[in-house]
């Protein structure tokens, strides 16, 4: 008899598990930053893209590790040097019941780069691409030169409906009338600064989400966000402040999820001026820019104790970095390790380069952009001072910092000599940082746009450009890894660590961390 009841209980709980997907369950998430619109093409910005992931599918999806997988397209491949063929998924319906087909794709790609009043659109990913409908479920994309990153670029564009969305203004998306996608959730309501609600799309073509209703609440203040979770007002929060992680770890009712991100924190060094404005001799006089010397750059890299930054400043929530992307990403080199802390080696290198007594330097950094950014700059300043490079630290709000760091000097060049910055590889592979941070600054080709140290090495440039022409994945992977090795050996930039993001949920829930730092309701699972 007892056995029978136990069996009954088991079967009931199994039944509950099976039907769990269809039951009414509400999830409330506290966000650190809120989107600026419900229009998926309005602003190419992390919080906007994360929210639009719920309502709108992409042709190609990026999973939690930013690997590509079929979305609204079932397959994509080059059919000749310059043309890619995308086969679309059949039988997919928009939230308003209309069918998804090639017309939706064509009009999406027309609208995405060109939304009125958009602060920053998706034009970057669509430049030089021509879209052509072949039949209802086939689209050809052609470029002028061979283009291997087609799938990565296309995976960033949310697909909207030809009938409901393409002719609509951003305002229509914000009210919900045009926010018709094919995604796992349907638009519920949008109150800026207050909440964004969504309901489950029961007709979703993929795996239906377990949450019948989701409520996103923007709570910008870190301590308030943690308090809201502890109070039970939200079920999960994003961006747990590092100072609170220890406290939350000790609480049984809270479950933390951590995952490394695609964001590397690194140092750029002035490598284009003979006299760098924030480099001075030990007596404060003008000297020839020592950062032009690879040995000096390597000495700086050796003088930085990456493990100490990770353990002390980041409270263990980061990974020491030896290259541009953490392990597991496409194009990462297997040969590169974080450079060991070696203050004596650093001093020797400095002496060899002709600076036995070091020199004076100022490190500039933001104080409200990356996790603990100002503290990291201070730590690096102290470490460099210890090997003889007397380093002053100056941090400022990002609204001031990035403008000055990018084009702050009188001639429109970067203003600073030595800066702390971060880079998140949106495409999820190594060409993104190589192209923007390492390649020579080249306005016409659009390379090196964030190369604020203006490092320039023709060999590395050639390698990067070759990779960007190579459609074969394996070959490209090797080329990217080689380019990364060359850049690190030349100390083009000095990576310090990879950011690790922390989410916290109430007991029984778990978030599958994403490298792109997005907070998605689809990634919240029950344990």
């Amino acid at each position, binding site marked *: 008899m007892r056995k029978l009841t136990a069996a009954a209980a088991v079967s009931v709980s199994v039944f509950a598990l099976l039907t769990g997907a269809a039951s009414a369950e509400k999830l409330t998430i506290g966000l650190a930053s809120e989107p600026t619109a419900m229009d998926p093409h309005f602003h190419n910005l992390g919080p906007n893209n994360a929210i639009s992931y719920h309502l709108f599918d992409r042709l190609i999806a990026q999973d939690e590790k930013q690997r590509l997988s079929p979305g609204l397209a079932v397959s994509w491949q080059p059919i000749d040097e310059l043309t890619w063929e995308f086969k679309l998924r059949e039988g997919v319906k928009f939230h308003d019941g209309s069918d998804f087909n090639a017309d939706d794709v064509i009009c999406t790609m027309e609208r995405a780069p060109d939304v009125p*009043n958009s602060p920053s659109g998706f034009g970057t990913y669509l430049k030089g691409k021509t879209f052509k409908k072949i039949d209802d479920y086939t689209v050809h994309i052609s470029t002028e030169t061979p283009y291997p990153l087609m799938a990565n670029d296309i995976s960033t564009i949310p697909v909207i409906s030809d009938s409901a969305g393409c002719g609509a203004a951003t305002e229509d998306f914000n009210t919900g009338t045009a926010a018709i996608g094919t995604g796992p959730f349907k638009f519920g309501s949008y109150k800026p600064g207050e909440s964004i609600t969504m309901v489950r799309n029961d007709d979703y073509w993929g795996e239906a989400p377990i949450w019948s209703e989701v409520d996103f609440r923007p709570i910008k203040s870190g301590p308030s966000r943690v308090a809201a979770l502890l109070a039970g007002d939200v079920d999960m929060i994003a961006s747990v402040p590092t100072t609170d992680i220890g406290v939350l770890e000790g609480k049984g009712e809270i479950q933390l999820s951590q995952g490394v991100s695609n964001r590397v924190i690194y140092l750029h060094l002035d490598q284009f001026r003979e006299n760098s404005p924030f480099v001075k001799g030990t007596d404060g006089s003008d000297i020839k820019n020592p950062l032009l010397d690879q040995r000096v750059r390597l000495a700086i890299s050796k003088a930085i104790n990456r493990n100490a930054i990770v353990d002390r400043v980041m409270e263990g929530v980061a990974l020491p970095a030896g290259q541009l992307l953490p392990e597991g990403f496409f194009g990462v080199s297997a040969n590169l390790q974080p450079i060991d802390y070696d203050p004596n080696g650093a001093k020797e290198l400095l002496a060899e380069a002709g600076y036995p007594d070091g020199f004076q330097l100022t490190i500039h950094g933001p104080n409200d952009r990356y996790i603990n950014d100002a503290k990291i700059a201070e730590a690096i300043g102290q470490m460099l001072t210890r090997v003889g490079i007397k380093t002053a630290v100056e941090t400022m709000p990002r609204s001031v910092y990035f403008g000055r760091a990018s084009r702050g000097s009188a001639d429109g060049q970067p203003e600073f000599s030595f800066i702390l910055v971060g880079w998140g590889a949106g495409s999820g592979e190594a060409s993104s940082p190589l192209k923007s941070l390492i390649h020579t600054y080249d306005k016409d080709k659009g390379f090196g746009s964030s190369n604020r140290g203006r490092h320039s090495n023709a060999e590395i440039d050639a390698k990067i450009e070759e990779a960007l022409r190579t459609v074969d994945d394996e070959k490209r992977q090797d080329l990217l890894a080689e380019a990364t090795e060359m850049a690190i050996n030349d100390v083009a930039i000095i990576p310090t660590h990879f950011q690790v993001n922390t989410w916290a949920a109430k007991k029984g829930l778990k978030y599958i961390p994403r490298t792109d730092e997005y907070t998605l309701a689809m990634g919240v699972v029950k344990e």
Partner: protein
Amino acid sequence: MSVFVIRRLMQALLVVFLMSVIVFFGVNIVGDPVYMLVSPDADQADIEAAIRRLGLDRPIWDQYLLFLKGAAQGNLGDSFIFGEPALKLILHHMPATLELAFSALMLAIVIGIPLGLFSGLYPDNPISKGIMAGSILGFSLPTFWVGLMLILLFAVELGWLPSTGRGDTATIFGIETSLATWDGLRHIFLPALNLALLKISLAIRLTRAGVREAMSQDYVKYARAKGISTKRIIFVHVMKNIMIPVVTVMGLEFGSLIGFSVVTETIFAWPGMGKLLIDAILQLDRPVVVAYLMIMVLFFVVINLVVDILYSILDPRVRLQDQGA
């Protein structure tokens, strides 16, 4: 009289114009909004296109003239970040801030005046001394800390009230307000209390000082001698007299409640103008910052203008002096 009003109007216009110069140039020389807006993936051409689209490639005088031209037509520019008119954004967030400031003011009056009255009537009572000590805390504790403590106590530890956000709203008299629903009231209580703490202390001290002064005045003594009940003396005669300064100061403080709501709104994730402003400052959404400041300037200029005109009606000496000058 009309000469006086016209002259005051001209002065007000001049003030608004001067403020627009200071505000516009002050906000526009700080930082670079382009890098706050463009995606990191954007290349040089994208960045330049964004600069052109925002009109940041023009000389600053040119930008200012464009702003003036728009302002004359009631358009204070579009938000860089939301792409919507800045004025519309601010007006959209205004009800939340106004209801918060109003609730805080109500709390200040309902809590502060009775406590002040008590401690004024019984200054040597230990409870009165406790009230006065408490009011010092109300003055000196920083708002952001008190706010977090309130959340920790009432939301996390006791679980009585929600921690953050604005609750359900309902529409009464055409205004959407959270004061009309139970859920809304539960949400507004903590932020309103946090915002009100300083004003409660102010009300306590003002009332207490007023009561102590009034109780020793001749009309109170005479009323006592006449045999009027203490209750009537306090609530009719004394209250009437001490209310004048209290009401004046509290009225003026309403403006500062709106201004100081920034911190409280951030901690409690309250979707008001203050939060909009602080976000706009952090992200360098210049049109919103400028529009907010211009609205505040107009707000105060209009209040002062009305006060000036009222004074001149109430007190002919002001008017006469002005004509003589």
